[in-house]
């Protein structure tokens, strides 16, 4: 019975090595899945942790591991059947000198054993399949939830707040969340399996021979010790290599994107050489890492092979009578010996599976860490919880006439600097107000305030005597808005225009062309290969800066029932021709609406009915630092 406590030590060692790279105790604590979210509910601000399983999910993963373990342990039954069927062979052979055995006996025995093995086999496969399905579905659920949480933070974050770059956000939502899948699906169940199966095998072995059990128990824990030693080196090497890979594929992509530039400067050949060199460096680096990684799995193989070999030799010599020790009294029979030998490989199998899944663990943990750092400041997305005003019922309010807008003693600060301090402004219905001022004087903040993207620190912004944030959901559907660098979205040009309207069913082709005409974009769309159906890539791909601006203006013009027009530097960095078209379009759109145009382009003055200069108004253009 020495086997059991030593096995426990072995398991402990295994677990330690499993966490060998997580240096701080904290991380080890967090490893216990499911316990994390208990104390810190998502609303308490710790919601930055994405991709953690909830209680039910970690239970499911453990259940999958247990199912796997049971399926594994059923091998003990099968091994028993095999040994039982074959157990009488040597006796018969040694009794009847030249192997004349009663055939009926053997075949009958074999039939029973084979039937038993087959039956257990079906059960094992069923259990394995079940475990796999459970683990897979659970992992998928965790992934989907992580995605949903990331996206809900993104949707809740005010557009005026800081946000990760589009590339980083997209990579997190796709690749990083994808990395969680293999971790939960493969690694977590293996952990449970590793705790149960070797223990069971050692126990079953120990029933007949404590030496056999001892061989397993000695070989088993040595594996994680050596693997951990090698693994530490492997980890450092693999991290640098991982960075190298990211750099390599990034730079390849970069160069393919800039191919035309490279061609025009005759730099293709040079670049090819650079890429070849980088690829070669990457290859040697990868091989260096892999060699270490392979070494660690080789240690595993070595000990498991040696363990099996030792068992075989021990059993063989016992049967020969050369070794008398190791059993609980009496000599080891052939059936017992065979049984021990059959069990040995299964002792090591979970270890190997664990080691194989270890890679997934590294990827999953790294991904989870990255997800947690995506939104570094928790305030970013918790603060403007009313930014979309969803908690204020707006059903009773209607916006069918140009609204009046009032700023009452509004103070807004960014980065400890006042943008507005006790700012007052009244915008009459129907007027076209030009807000001038140098960059940084708060033009964008003013428009954000009206749209409810920005809540004032003190004071109130009112639209038709209602708080801006409260009316925002309605207002945003009734506004014509043209930003500084408008963005078009993936989809056809038509789909982009239709984004402006709630129900696209009532929109005719004529309406679209009318809007395009107003924006001076008619000719440009006619020129496109598929007209309105032309697909636009990311970032309005395929259109020039000026063309994007025109299409964005057409999109804005689709809102015929809008009561308010807000434009933020609509002519910034435009050539005269486009600027003239945009101004003309805006002039038509301002008619019959309350309009606020933020600009420092004097050309826009001709369409305004009133003009204010934020700097002259006593707003803190230079930014007064808090006392």
């Amino acid at each position, binding site marked *: 019975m020495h086997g059991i406590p030593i096995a426990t030590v072995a398991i402990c060692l295994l677990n330690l090595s499993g966490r060998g790279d997580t240096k701080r105790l904290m991380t080890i604590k967090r490893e216990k899945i499911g316990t994390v979210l208990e104390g810190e509910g998502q609303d308490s601000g710790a919601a930055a942790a994405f991709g953690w399983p909830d209680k039910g999910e970690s239970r499911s993963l453990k259940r999958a591991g247990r199912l796997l373990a049971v399926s594994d342990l059923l091998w003990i039954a099968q091994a028993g059947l095999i040994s039982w069927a074959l157990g009488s062979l040597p006796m018969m052979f040694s009794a009847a000198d030249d192997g004349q055995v009663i055939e009926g006996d053997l075949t009958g025995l074999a039939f029973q054993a084979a039937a038993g093995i087959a039956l257990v086999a079906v059960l094992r496969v069923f259990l394995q399949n079940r475990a796999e399905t459970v683990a897979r579905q659970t992992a998928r659920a965790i992934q989907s939830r992580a995605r949903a949480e990331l996206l809900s933070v993104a949707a809740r974050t005010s557009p005026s707040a800081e946000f990760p770059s589009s590339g980083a956000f997209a990579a997190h939502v796709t690749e990083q969340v994808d990395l969680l899948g293999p971790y939960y699906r493969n690694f977590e169940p293996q952990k449970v399996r590793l705790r149960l199966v070797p223990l069971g095998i050692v126990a079953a072995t120990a029933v007949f021979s404590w030496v056999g059990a001892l061989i397993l128990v000695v070989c088993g824990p040595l594996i994680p010790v050596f693997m951990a030693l090698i693994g530490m080196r492997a980890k450092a090497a693999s991290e640098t290599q991982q960075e190298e890979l990211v750099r390599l594929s990034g730079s390849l992509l970069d160069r393919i994107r800039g191919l035309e530039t490279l061609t025009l400067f005759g730099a293709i050949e040079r670049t090819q050489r650079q890429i070849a060199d980088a690829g070669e460096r990457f290859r040697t680096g990868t091989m260096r890492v892999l060699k270490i990684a392979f070494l660690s*799995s080789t240690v595993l193989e070595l000990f498991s092979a040696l363990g099996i070999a030792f068992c075989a030799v021990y059993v063989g010599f016992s049967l020969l009578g050369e070794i008398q020790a190791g059993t609980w009294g009496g000599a080891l029979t052939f059936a017992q010996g065979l049984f021990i*030998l059959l069990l040995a490989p299964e002792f090591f199998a979970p270890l190997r599976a664990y080691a194989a899944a270890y890679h997934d663990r590294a990827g999953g943990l790294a991904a989870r860490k990255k997800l947690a750092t995506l939104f570094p400041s928790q305030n970013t997305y918790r603060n403007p919880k009313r930014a979309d005003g969803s908690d204020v019922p707006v059903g009773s309010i209607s916006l069918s006439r140009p609204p009046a807008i009032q700023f009452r003693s509004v103070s807004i600060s960014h980065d400890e600097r006042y943008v507005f301090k006790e700012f007052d402004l009244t915008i009459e219905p129907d007027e076209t107000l030009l807000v001038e001022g140098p960059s940084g004087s708060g033009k964008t903040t003013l428009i954000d305030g009206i749209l409810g993207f920005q809540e004032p620190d003190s004071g109130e912004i009112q639209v038709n005597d209602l708080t801006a944030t409260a009316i925002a959901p309605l207002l945003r559907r009734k506004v014509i808005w043209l930003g500084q660098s408008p963005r078009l979205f993936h989809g056809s040009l038509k789909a982009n225009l239709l984004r402006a309207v709630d129900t696209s069913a009532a929109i005719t082709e004529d309406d679209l062309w009318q809007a395009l005409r107003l924006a001076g974009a008619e000719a440009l769309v006619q020129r496109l290969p598929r007209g309105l159906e032309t697909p636009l890539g990311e970032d309005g791909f395929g259109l020039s800066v000026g063309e994007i601006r025109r299409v964005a203006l057409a999109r804005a013009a689709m809102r015929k029932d809008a009561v308010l027009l807000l434009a933020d530097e609509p002519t910034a960095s435009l050539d005269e021709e486009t600027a003239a078209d945009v101004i003309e379009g805006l002039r038509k759109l301002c008619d019959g609406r309350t309009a606020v145009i933020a600009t420092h382009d004097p050309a826009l003055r001709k369409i305004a009915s009133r003009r204010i200069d934020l700097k002259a108004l006593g707003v803190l253009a230079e930014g007064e630092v808090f006392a």
Partner: protein
Amino acid sequence: MRSVWHIIRTQHRYDSFHFWLGILVALLPAAAGLLLLGVSGWFIAAAAIAGLSGAFLNIFAPSALIRAFAIVRTAGRYGERVLTHDATFRFLTGFRNRLFAAMALKTNDGQRSGLLLNRLTLDVAVLDTIYLRLVVPLVLSLVVAVSLLLVWSSVSPLLLLTGAAFVLAWLGLAVWTFARSDTKTARRSDAALDAMRLRAADLAAGRRDLAIYGGLEAAADSVLVADTRLAEAQDVEDHRTSKLTAGSTLLGQLFLAVMLLVCLHEVGNGALTAAFSVGLILVVMGLPEIFSMSLPGLSRLPRVALAAGRIMHLMRRPEEVEPSQSLSVPETGRQGAVPALALEDVSFGYPGADRRVLEGLSFHLAQGEILALAGRSGCGKSTIGALAARLRKPGQGKILLGGLEIDRISEKELRRKVTVIGQKAYLFNETVAENLRVANPDAGDTELWRALEQAALAERISENPKGLQTILGEGGLGLSGGEQRRLALARAFLTRPALFVLDEMTEGLDAATAADVLDRFLSYRGDAAVLMIAHRRQELERADRVLDLTAPCGSGIRSPEIILSEFQ
């Protein structure tokens, strides 16, 4: 599937020695593993018989064998992994280079979306599956199966029959996976992943636009819709994989049961000794491990086939090669005698378009002259620029550069003679210095600073503590649009061509910046000729001559004054 085959052949051709060496070495641990089991089984059975009957048994040979197999298996596994991975990575590195070369030849396909490029780099990474997870395990399984069939056949026909039946069953499983490989689902899941990436990027980048046009919540939902589609597609794939795994495991276990039956039957017949039968049964225990090695590869096959297909598509049709005769542009002493650029009766139509953009166009650009191309958008101005830079080839007519037909100038010479400054100059995710040295790899730091100075960017760059070593980031992030344009200009200021092609250089710039950029360019250009694709007054005003492409044929070239008066 053809493309997978093609990749295998390509890798074989690339380095057939390592290709076969990897497979050969992979055989060692597999064989040693099976023999380890077999000999162990035989040994203990023989030992038991000997122990009971007191007969003599040479115990040292088998126990030495057992240890030897254990070591060969371990060392062989290590060697196999190193060799096969090395062979694969060698191939992929070379392959990546070829892919880039192939793409370089195809720049005139027009621009590609970042999405496609992204997919492409992911695709190359997927290709390692082919050799590592398909070729090696499948060859291995085949060799093991054939050798075992030989062993079984030497024992008894019944054993051979049983073994053959199960080997065939495994083969059937593999063929079933292969034949029913479901590229449709793989394509669906690729598409869903792409949609998710795109929509998430849109959601992050266009937050204000989305909040007003369509709503952020709806945008977030649309990403989740893609996630659901992805989950559905992956579920189908996973389902197949687990069916495959379950089938293979079940086969292995049933084989064990039947083998037990058959072996005992044969022992009863006297066709088989007891010890040998135990060995045979134990060998069967080791088989599933070998046969299941190809399962991951087989279940990923549709995905790999798609990736391979996309890559092969790109590598296909090698474009027309470099001109056979490499002539250099004669340096003419007589300034102005040979036009810097001449188009003679050039016509051009984009593939697939019914209308030709250019029809029988002829004009000359004298050395040192500034010629502006005017006309409304879409009249072919940019096409002329692309033709002059040999990014496109005319359907008909001749283009002469310094008196030589453009087709007959070597690539290197051509790029030295012509510099294009476009509206969308690409900035690499590298340091400022490296971005500039794209134009001239030999330029020293002083030259770089001078170029930056001329582009009025030196101050901005020197503000940064790292100076020229500042990394620009994706798409030149950190610099404003105007600054990026200036950097592109500085890059051009490191070349000394005979002809500058300005393709709407000032598009998207405000008037003051545009004028500044233009003037800086003109003061740098020296006596180089300039073909200016213009769309604003400022540009036309600075030209020696203006070619109005919208004017009726024959009266193309007019003085700037006439054109200007029409512009007003």
